[in-house]
């Protein structure tokens, strides 16, 4: 049975500084991996089998994070233009195009880091674009690609029941592929698979997720101590990059303590919190501060977001924890369950969102349709129609993009947000709650 490792380094006294330090350290590690002879894996945030890659000592590159960082750093237009000049359609996912722009920029990222080439790329079926993206790497780098097919939920009320033939079939499939992946990693690294190391990584993930679930729940109180779509985005960045490590555990503990302390002090993210909202969809990284500001000006805070589930591996959904006593089997089980309970929820999220409204005592749902992300956004408008008519919940639908500023229309979005708050205000007046 593995025990938790002690953090190797002392973290900074506050979570923000600690998170920044960890992100910088991660980027440094990634950048220096080739000279240290360390293998590099490209992975996505959903369905990535990081636990196995850690056993083999891969440094992890998250191309989604590279791409979103081009947006945050206002470099996206140049990277997107390079990819479009190369021949990619304007209708292709802007994350993919920013990454192609990076390749065409000789892997020189606007953060200053030079991103190394992959020794392996893991693309899960949880987003089909992952697979097309990995095909681009196959062509560009000659990289070895591993497609991990993880069956999602088949319909809205689908419940995987451990021990049922259906569950066993899905789990057997995932486990078979993980065994293939292990064999591939052994070939690439020349190392033998170590199940004890896997158990150790899983124990660290368990602790990180236990703390993460606590942090999510702390936002159920009023006022919400953090904004899911601003502060939350930095939390999951560290969670992803340091998943399964002692440093990741230490960070999550520091963060949990900090958030809990804010709750104890009655300190909210928004000074005078008037409206609590659920955010559904992916962020607009190129204008996220502005987007959040449009809501906070009205005293609105995003208390929760489905993004914090699927962009963080989905393990927070329904109490999923590894059993390090049977590490590989447990990895197959939790990977399957995380897909079916959390990561594939975009297609059937109407009931979950309505449930989140209750749990977080929210006033409504904001849907952010993203041109680049059909995984998340294809049927949002239909979802909204259902939630509004079935549950009578106030909802807002806005559209822009992940990192392409051409799709951000400030005046139009502001008008819609203002109108939404007028509706919320009127509802409150009608209920006599003003």
């Amino acid at each position, binding site marked *: 049975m593995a025990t938790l490792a002690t953090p190797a380094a002392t973290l900074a006294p506050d979570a923000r500084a600690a998170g920044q330090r960890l992100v910088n350290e991660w980027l440094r590690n990634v950048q220096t991996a080739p000279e240290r002879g360390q293998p590099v894996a490209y992975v996505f945030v959903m369905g990535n089998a990081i636990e196995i890659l850690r056993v083999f000592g891969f440094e992890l590159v998250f191309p989604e994070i590279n791409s979103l960082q081009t947006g945050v750093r206002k470099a996206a237009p140049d990277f997107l233009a390079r990819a479009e000049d190369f021949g*990619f359609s304007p*209708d292709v996912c802007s994350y993919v195009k920013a990454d192609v722009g990076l390749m065409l920029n000789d892997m020189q990222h606007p953060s200053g880091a030079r991103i190394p080439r992959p020794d392996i790329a893991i693309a899960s079926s949880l987003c*089909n*674009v992952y697979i097309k993206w990995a095909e681009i790497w196959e062509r560009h780098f000659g990289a070895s690609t591993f497609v991990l097919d993880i069956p999602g939920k088949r*319909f809205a009320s*689908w419940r995987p029941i451990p021990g049922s033939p259906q569950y066993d079939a899905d789990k057997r499939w995932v486990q078979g592929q993980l065994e293939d992946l292990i064999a591939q990693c052994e070939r690439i690294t020349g190392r033998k698979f170590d199940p004890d190391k896997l158990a150790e990584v899983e124990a660290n993930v368990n602790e990180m997720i236990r703390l993460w679930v606590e942090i999510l729940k702390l936002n159920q109180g009023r006022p919400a101590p953090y904004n899911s779509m601003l502060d939350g985005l930095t939390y999951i960045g560290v969670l992803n990059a340091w998943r399964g490590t002692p440093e990741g555990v230490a960070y999550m503990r520091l963060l949990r303590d900090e958030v809990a302390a804010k709750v104890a002090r009655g300190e909210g993210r928004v000074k005078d919190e008037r409206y609590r909202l659920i955010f559904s969809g992916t962020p607009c990284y190129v204008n996220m501060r502005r987007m959040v500001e449009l809501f906070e000006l009205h005293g609105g805070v995003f208390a929760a977001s489905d993004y914090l589930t699927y962009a963080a591996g989905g393990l927070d959904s329904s109490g999923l924890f590894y059993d390090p006593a049977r590490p590989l089997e447990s990895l197959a089980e939790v990977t399957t369950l995380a897909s079916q309970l959390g990561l594939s929820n975009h297609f059937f999220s109407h009931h979950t969102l309505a449930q989140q409204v209750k749990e977080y005592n929210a006033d409504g749902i904001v849907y952010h349709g993203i041109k680049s992300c*059909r995984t998340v956004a294809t*049927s949002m408008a239909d979802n909204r129609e259902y939630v509004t008519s079935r549950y009578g919940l106030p909802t807002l639908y806005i559209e822009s993009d992940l990192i392409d500023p051409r799709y951000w229309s400030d005046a139009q979005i502001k008008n819609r947000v203002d109108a939404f708050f007028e509706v919320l205000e009127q509802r409150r007046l009608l209920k006599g709650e003003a």
Partner: protein
Amino acid sequence: MATDAIDTESAFTSILARCHALSLRQQIAGDDAHKAIGYFPVYFPEEIVHAAGLLPYALLGGGNRVEVRYADARIGSFVCSICRTTTELGLNHSLGEMAGFFAQPICDAAKHMAGIWGRNFPQQDPQILALPQNVSSPAAARYVYDEYQRLRTILAEKVGRAITDDEIRASLGVYNENRRLQRALYAIKRDDPSRLSTVEAYLLIRAGTRIRREEHNVMLREALDLLARRRVRPMDKPRVIFVGGFCEQPPLEMIETIEDVCFIVDDDLLIGQRWITEDIPEQGDPVWALAESYIQRSASSPVQYDVRKPKEETLMTMLREARAEAAIISAAKFCEPGLDDQLALSRRLDREHIPHLVLEFEEKMTSFEQMAMQVETFAETLLFE
């Protein structure tokens, strides 16, 4: 023209007219509506549905004949037309009360179709048939087998009885014959393109998605018999292949526009109908035979990752086997897999110095003048090379 030649042409035209009418029909005919199992592209193991006595019904969108009144308010503005018009056909009740609805994880938009259907037509028991992306894994056939057995159980519940192995074997026989007949059509198109145009072959194959497979077999046998006797005057046009029609279907007018100046000697139009490339064994466990054939005897498309079938190599093989001199590399608007492959394929053709034309289409497009000009210019370049 001799009388028998006129009769042959007239009989063939009459079959095509029926096929055309079937392809335009948006409603499911009469009693079939309650027996239809609608499925979204690309491939679906129709044999299991057939064995249950139900009607497999390929959902192919509304083409350029449906007015979108409801679906625009339900689907993002950045989503392909086939998702939009299929939703429209549901919301405007054209599809009626189907007995079932299946989407597959071919792309992210398609997966949402199960959610849309679930919220709007829960009585149709909509769901995802989770066909895998990692088909080269040794564990893949067993997984597909399990998923097909799940489908078999669902359909058995719908018809209130078990679906026997013998029934599925019989369906394999019907479909094996159907695929042989389709292959025969494609062989004519490839070897003697003046005898059978792509629009004609397309209509003949598309009709199979709207009628019972036994009836379709009769139709194709009759068509092949007539084609053998058809009088043709050989024409001289550039031989090209067309790719990009694996899911959303280009309008007929677009294919006609290309065929005005080129022979399309191979294509991926309605590839799901021809997904299994050889006969499925009719002995042994028929569900295993279906599952194993999906892995081992299958075609290729941009929405299927298969390390054994690199996209560019598949294209080069297609060109070589069809003895084509050029390619039309097409993609539906907003189709991420198609658009990604379009670039990769055209770059490979550039490297090989193989002439090609890149086209984007939408099933709902109605104007083809500009495309005609592009295609004519392309064909002229081929003739003068």
